[in-house]
């Protein structure tokens, strides 16, 4: 009986899965073309899965082991089942392996079931709640129906009824696992996820065998030369096909939701829901079936979309409300946490681009800031000729005068902000103490374009970037140093695509280098307890977690780390133009961050970003003082010992001066 039914069932499920896969692929193909090396991606896929993806999943050890058991068991069991039951290779060895695999899978599914008993809020419910049962049904029925094959049980044991029950359970399991995989069930993630890893839009973000860690955080440029190319994403089908594929890979684990500062602040954004909305839009329909946490303050079921319909309506509702997109601080916490390597920020900025460039609808102060950037090259609308007024007494060497320097000090728009001017002064003092040969662009400098780009105004970004690149091309310098991680990121990671390749250092990195080269000496720290806030654009965007800590250690500071620090650092709320678009929530993100600081009991929070300084200092009745690392360093500077001062170690880092050659 089973011998007849099993192959039919298996091949029917496989056929249905194939049809589903074809339909799913058609959905993805609605997207715009993208250049992807298909073959290379498929070859790289196992490594991407086993190394990069597991690197993320393994942050939760229990879940990682559960997944290894369940998924590993399933893949093995499915393969073997096709061989043993489908093709009738009733080999006891294969059968034994199949038994082991399905047993392993069953154990895994027990853990899945345990997690589903009291699921945390971030997990989606709905069909996901039946998944452990489906997994158990599959693994148990495969196990039982394999027992006769290996001869543990006689072939005709039990009654017809028992056999029928077994077949029914197996049909359920097969249905969920194969049919559901391609027809939109929870198991879809396995199918879409595998392809997503293979055809990822940022292949460079994966590690390689040579030991490269892989990091790709810069936004991709729009082609503005081509007047027929759409400006950003209006409808789900305006995404590239591999972006759509990526959305389908979502497992709704809600790690992004748990990490998202806007969600925590009660702003109407939930990265998981956003990705699910894109999946809904791709197929067409309403979000009523979504079973996870909604966007705060926005009930589920009121929004609907279609592949070629607008995502954001000019009036009324469509798939997503504009304020959801403008709540994002582009902190990348969701991307960092996503085990499926989905690029939420790219998608959000793509949609923002359309809102700004086509709708002309950047909320609140957005339009004003963009107008200022166009007219005055800085977001505040200040006279671009007054960029260096704060340093009137400092006699900063200008690139226009010296033409070349070791270090080009990029001031950033903080040069107009009175608070940040203190940081800049401190940094100049440190550079002078270390006898660094540096120069500034002065009034030739413009906004890096960070805010414009994140507000979706790619045209203004490219205009600013183009002019900055032209200015920088006039001068010779070894590296750019800046105290603004946003400029750091844009100059280092986003100008390359437009033809500007520079070696950029954040000031903490540079100070750490100077200290390691014995060019700075510090008085011992006498202050109170200190904690450090990782700026998103330094940490998650550029992987620099160590240098600031090394500098603080050199100052003699013992850090009281916050619970969320390093790659899990919580955003200050100042990125992505969020303070400009200013979407109301229940709380303010910087208030939550200062609460994190308070929990460590620190009296001082060290930061390395003008935005973070402004946001955190704006918190009323804060328990801790906010200082930039440059300020702490400048305060602690002491003269180097004389003997040391004469040592050759003091020459410019990584550079042999002309005099020494002679």
């Amino acid at each position, binding site marked *: 009986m089973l011998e007849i039914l099993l192959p039919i069932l298996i091949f029917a499920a496989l056929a249905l899965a194939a049809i589903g896969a074809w339909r799913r692929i058609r959905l993805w193909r609605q997207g715009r073309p993208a250049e992807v090396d298909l073959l290379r991606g498929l070859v790289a896929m196992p490594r991407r899965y086993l190394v990069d993806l597991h690197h993320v999943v393994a942050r939760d050890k229990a879940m990682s082991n559960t997944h290894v058991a369940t998924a590993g068991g399933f893949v093995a069991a499915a393969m073997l089942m096709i061989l043993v039951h489908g093709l009738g290779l009733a080999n006891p060895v294969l059968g034994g392996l199949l038994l082991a695999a399905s047993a392993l899978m069953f154990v895994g599914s027990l853990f899945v079931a345990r997690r589903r008993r009291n699921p945390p809020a971030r997990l989606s419910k709905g069909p996901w709640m039946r998944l452990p049962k489906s997994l158990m049904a599959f693994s148990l029925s495969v196990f039982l129906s394999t027992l006769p094959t290996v001869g543990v049980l006689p072939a005709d044991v039990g009654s017809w009824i028992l056999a029928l029950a077994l077949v029914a359970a197996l049909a359920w399991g097969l249905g969920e696992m194969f049919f559901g995989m391609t027809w939109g069930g929870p198991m879809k993630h396995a199918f879409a996820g595998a392809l997503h890893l293979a055809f990822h839009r940022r292949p460079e973000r994966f590690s390689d065998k040579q030991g490269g860690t892989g990091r790709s955080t810069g936004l991709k440029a729009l082609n503005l030369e081509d007047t027929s190319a759409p400006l950003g994403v209006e409808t789900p089908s305006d995404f590239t096909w591999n972006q759509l594929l990526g959305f389908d890979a979502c497992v709704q684990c809600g790690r992004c939701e748990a990490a998202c500062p806007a969600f925590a602040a009660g702003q109407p954004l939930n990265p998981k829901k956003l990705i699910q909305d894109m999946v809904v839009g791709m197929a067409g329909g309403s979000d009523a079936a979504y079973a996870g946490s909604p966007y705060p303050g926005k009930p589920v079921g009121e929004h609907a979309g279609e592949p070629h319909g607008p995502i954001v309506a000019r009036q009324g509702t469509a798939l997503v409300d504009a304020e959801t997109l403008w709540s994002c601080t582009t902190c990348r916490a969701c991307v960092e946490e996503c085990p499926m390597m989905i690029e939420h920020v790219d998608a959000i900025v793509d949609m923002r681009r359309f809102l700004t460039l086509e709708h002309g609808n950047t909320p609140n*102060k957005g339009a004003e800031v963009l107008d200022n950037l166009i007219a005055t090259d800085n977001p*505040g609308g200040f006279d671009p000729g007054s960029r260096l007024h704060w340093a009137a007494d400092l006699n900063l060497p200008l690139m226009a005068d010296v033409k070349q320097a070791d270090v080009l000090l990029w001031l950033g728009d903080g040069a107009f*902000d*009175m*608070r940040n001017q203190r940081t800049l002064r401190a940094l100049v003092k440190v550079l002078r103490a270390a006898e660094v040969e540096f120069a500034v662009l002065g009034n030739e400098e413009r906004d890096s374009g960070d805010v414009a780009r994140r507000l979706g105004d790619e045209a203004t970004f490219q205009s600013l970037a183009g002019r900055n690149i032209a200015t920088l091309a006039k001068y010779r310098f070894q590296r750019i140093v800046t105290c603004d991680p946003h400029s750091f990121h844009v100059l280092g990671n986003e100008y390359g695509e437009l033809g500007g390749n520079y070696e950029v250092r954040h000031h903490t990195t540079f100070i750490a280098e100077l200290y390691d080269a014995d060019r700075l000496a510090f008085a011992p720290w006498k202050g109170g307890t200190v904690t450090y806030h990782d700026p998103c654009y330094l940490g998650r965007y550029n992987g620099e977690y160590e240098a600031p800590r090394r500098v603080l250690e050199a100052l003699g500071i013992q850090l009281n780390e916050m619970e969320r620090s390093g790659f899990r650092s919580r955003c200050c709320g100042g990125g992505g133009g969020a*303070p400009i678009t*200013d979407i*109301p929530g229940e709380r*303010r993100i910087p208030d939550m961050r200062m609460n994190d600081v308070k929990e460590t009991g620190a009296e001082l929070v060290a930061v390395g970003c003008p935005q973070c300084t*402004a946001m955190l*200092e*704006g918190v*009323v009745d804060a328990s801790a003082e906010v200082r930039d690392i440059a300020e702490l360093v400048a305060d602690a500077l002491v003269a180097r010992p004389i003997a040391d001062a004469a040592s050759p170690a003091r020459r410019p880092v990584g550079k042999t001066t002309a005099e020494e050659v002679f």
Partner: protein
Amino acid sequence: MSEIYRRDPRREWIARNRLHPEHTRVLAELGGLGATSEWLGPNGVIRKNPHAIGFIGPNGVKRIDRSGAQQVGQAAASSISAARQAAQDNRRNVNIEAPAFLVAVVPELSGGRLSSHDKDLLGLARRLADADAEQPGAVVAILFGKYKEDALGEAGIDRVVHLDEELYAGFAPEARLAALSAVERELAPRHWLLPDSPLGGADLGRRLALRLGGGQGERPATGLWQIEADAEAPLGWRCTTRGAAGSLDIQRPLPRVALALAECAEPVDETRHAAEPLSLAEAIPSALSRIEDLGQVAVDPAGVALAEAEFILSGGNGVKDWDGFHYAAKVLGATEGASRVAVDDGFIARHRQVGATGTWVTARVYLAVGISGAIQHLQGIQSCEKVVAINLDPGCDMIKRADLAVIGDSAEILAALVAKVEQQRGGQRDAA
């Protein structure tokens, strides 16, 4: 007592002669109430007797306090009032009987009184009229509607054409233009001066300029702020005007019609002119009006945009009594603003936030209540002319920025200020 000052040469002689036995008595009489220190000398100059003033200091040295603070109160008061009277009497009466030419001025007359802009404009008119002392011109003011101003002569007006018909009330550019055209026909003034103020002369003056010159139009000088004599120019003057939204200075010969900015000249303060009424001989032809004024619309002062508000009452973390704050804003006629904290706490709407992260304001007076002055906030009020702070903490940054700071409980001070304004308003209404 008679205001006429009669001289007694003998007593003056005694007053000058310190050795005269009656010297002290005469001095006392001259000085009035026993203060023998000051009197009016023979040439109308105040004379002082340094021996009679001052006091013996702690070291036995005689000290004279020239600030006047040590003076006997009554004497000081009387001497100041006398000085003020003297200043008033200093105005020369000027009556130009047969003017060589006319300078027509159409003042804004907002609220029925000459504004400071009007007075500056009349000062400019006097400069044009009095350039040649031999052949002075006369300043003709054309006044529309009822006015309350009683110092027309003091402002430098020789002749007044008063047009008080109902059709000139409100926004009636067509009727007013017809009237000015009639003045042009009858009096043919050499110069037409109007204030370049949004709803004063800026509108009427431009209409007038285009109507003059037999329909050809005069190209008026707009945004004029300076004139200087220039013999080569047709009217004998050159002027400097602001162009291109205030970013350009244009030097050109002064045309017949000029629209001048405030502070274009010093107001008249040394002469008093006749301000004789003048009526037009011909009737003014009635103009066809295609614009109908339906009157003013009630506007909530709180609705004025923050960036344009002239006077902002801004509240911060230190404000505890928000009802009192809102009431104060209403009484003072101020636009409400707030610091970021007050907005975050939900006391006031987000679009009312002042500062680098809110709205950059340009108010003439910024009254900051309970705002300690975060850098972003101070940046946002950079271009405010006068900043007044009420705060409990004398060390906060807002106090350092403020032109006037009062340390104390904001609710009490605001309440006192409101009471004062209400009391003064009441008083004014009684007087009017």
